[in-house]
């Protein structure tokens, strides 16, 4: 019988950040690689380019402040229990890197493997869950199917009564899954990349991508033109706009995705609980606040705000699952912009433009993939050839029909 990790100690003081993080250099006139987007993916890609491939003449261009987009807005859930081989491949690669990341970056990223429960509320949920657990195990990923009473053992505050509107019929459980502290992760990558010579350039918005004879030559920015041997896009919700600058169209749509936190609370929630059926994704963060993700707003939006009725609906759902949350207070809501692809899987790899590389379409899966995609994308850029883990995630799959459809079993896959 699996047992939950003892509750991490929310309320313990967070570790201090180091007294130096990064330089704030002026952009140089030219770089070997320009990474557009200073979020988690952009920073990780820069780090692995420098650390693994020795490519250090690299700039990360960020239109606002580093890691201020989805990296600052997500619910920090990390797991690799995806249905299809292709997905579990890259997410499990990421999870393995997460497991060594604190040491690698020499930064306290607070990766806490407290496990993730994905609840099933209908008979079809149960079938899908068992299918996913079995697929995970055959792929070497830790996964278990738990009946309702075992769910209760892992997370005692879940209401597993059969009398509720949509009873908990069981859950999948990935013990190695968990959460990390997003700013710490981003800053860990940023400062490590900075130490290796990568220029992190903030308040620098890319306004154009220059190409010549089908090859990328540089970018125009609000801080002037920057020549580039290679340009790599890591701009999540803004990918469509950037790719269009190079004449590349993407099958992604940008949608608002909301999240919220409560006041700081004494430990009540020892793990991470996700329920796609009722759109509840909740953990208790290191400081003690409950962090919850909501469903995606249905319409396209770049406003970094969503509709409040989605939050209200989510509250109702959360209370069905966790009656103890009734007295918790919503303290702050916000939204990110997620780029959603037709099959709910990312698009990573080469583009029709030489030297232009694409990493987008992560939807809600971006944070958990950060080390994996950073490593694989850096490999792709360095070798001008996809890493085996991202090979299935081409743009061409939409033409051939070889989709990696994670809708069915992953739904809104925070």
């Amino acid at each position, binding site marked *: 019988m699996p047992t939950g990790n003892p509750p991490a100690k929310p309320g313990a003081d967070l570790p201090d950040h180091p007294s130096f993080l990064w330089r704030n250099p002026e952009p140089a006139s030219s770089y070997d690689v320009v990474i557009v987007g200073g979020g988690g993916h952009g920073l990780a890609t820069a780090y692995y380019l420098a650390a693994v491939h020795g490519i250090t003449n690299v700039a990360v261009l960020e239109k606002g402040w580093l890691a201020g987009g989805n990296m600052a807005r997500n619910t920090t859930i990390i797991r690799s229990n995806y249905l299809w081989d292709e997905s579990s491949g890259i997410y499990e690669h990421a999870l393995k890197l997460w497991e060594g990341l604190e040491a690698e970056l020499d930064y306290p990223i607070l990766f806490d493997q407290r496990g993730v429960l994905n609840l099933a509320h209908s008979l079809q949920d149960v079938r899908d869950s068992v299918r996913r657990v079995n697929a995970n195990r055959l792929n070497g990923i830790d996964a278990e199917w738990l009946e309702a009473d075992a769910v209760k053992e892992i997370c005692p505050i879940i209401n597993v009564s059969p009398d509720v509107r949509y009873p908990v019929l069981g859950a999948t459980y990935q013990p190695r899954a968990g959460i990390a502290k997003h700013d710490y992760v981003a800053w860990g990558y940023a400062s490590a990349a900075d130490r290796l010579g990568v220029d992190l350039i903030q308040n620098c918005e890319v306004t154009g991508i220059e190409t010549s004879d089908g090859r990328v030559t540089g970018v125009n920015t609000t801080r002037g033109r920057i020549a580039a041997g290679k340009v790599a896009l890591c701009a999540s919700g803004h990918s469509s706009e950037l790719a269009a600058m190079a004449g590349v169209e*993407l*099958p992604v*749509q940008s949608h608002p995705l909301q999240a919220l936190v409560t006041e700081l609370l004494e430990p009540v929630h020892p793990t991470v609980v996700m329920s796609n059926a009722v759109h509840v994704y909740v953990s208790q963060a290191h400081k003690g606040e409950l962090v919850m993700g909501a469903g995606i707003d249905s*319409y*396209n939006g770049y406003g970094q705000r969503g*509709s409040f009725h989605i939050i209200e609906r989510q509250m109702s759902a959360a209370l069905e699952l966790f009656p103890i949350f009734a007295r918790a207070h919503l303290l702050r809501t916000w939204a990110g912009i997620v780029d959603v692809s037709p099959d709910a899987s990312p698009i990573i790899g080469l583009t029709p433009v030489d030297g232009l590389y694409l990493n987008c379409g992560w939807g809600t899966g971006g944070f958990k993939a950060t080390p994996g995609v950073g490593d694989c994308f850096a490999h792709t850029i360095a070798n001008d050839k996809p890493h085996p883990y991202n090979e299935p995630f081409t743009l061409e799959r*939409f*033409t*051939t029909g070889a989709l990696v459809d994670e809708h069915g079993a992953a739904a809104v896959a925070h």
Partner: protein
Amino acid sequence: MQLIPCPWCGPREEVEFHYGGQAHVSYPADPAALSDEEWARFVFFRDNPRGPFAERWSHTAGCRRWFNAVRDTRSYELHAVYRLDEERPVTT
């Protein structure tokens, strides 16, 4: 809770509506004549602008009519709604 002005029923809360993505993307006259690339473009590729976007909505909880709207995806402000048999109006 945004209001969406249904061309028939007037402004109603967004929960009464279903979003239908980009407008003015017609089903190809002869799908069989399209290459795989062209077909993929129709099936999977839609514009995703930051700014005014002509898109489709259906008033599912109301009159069940589909209509088009020009909405700014930054501010979510609806610049115009128009019936399917109307041209996209000029908006600023």
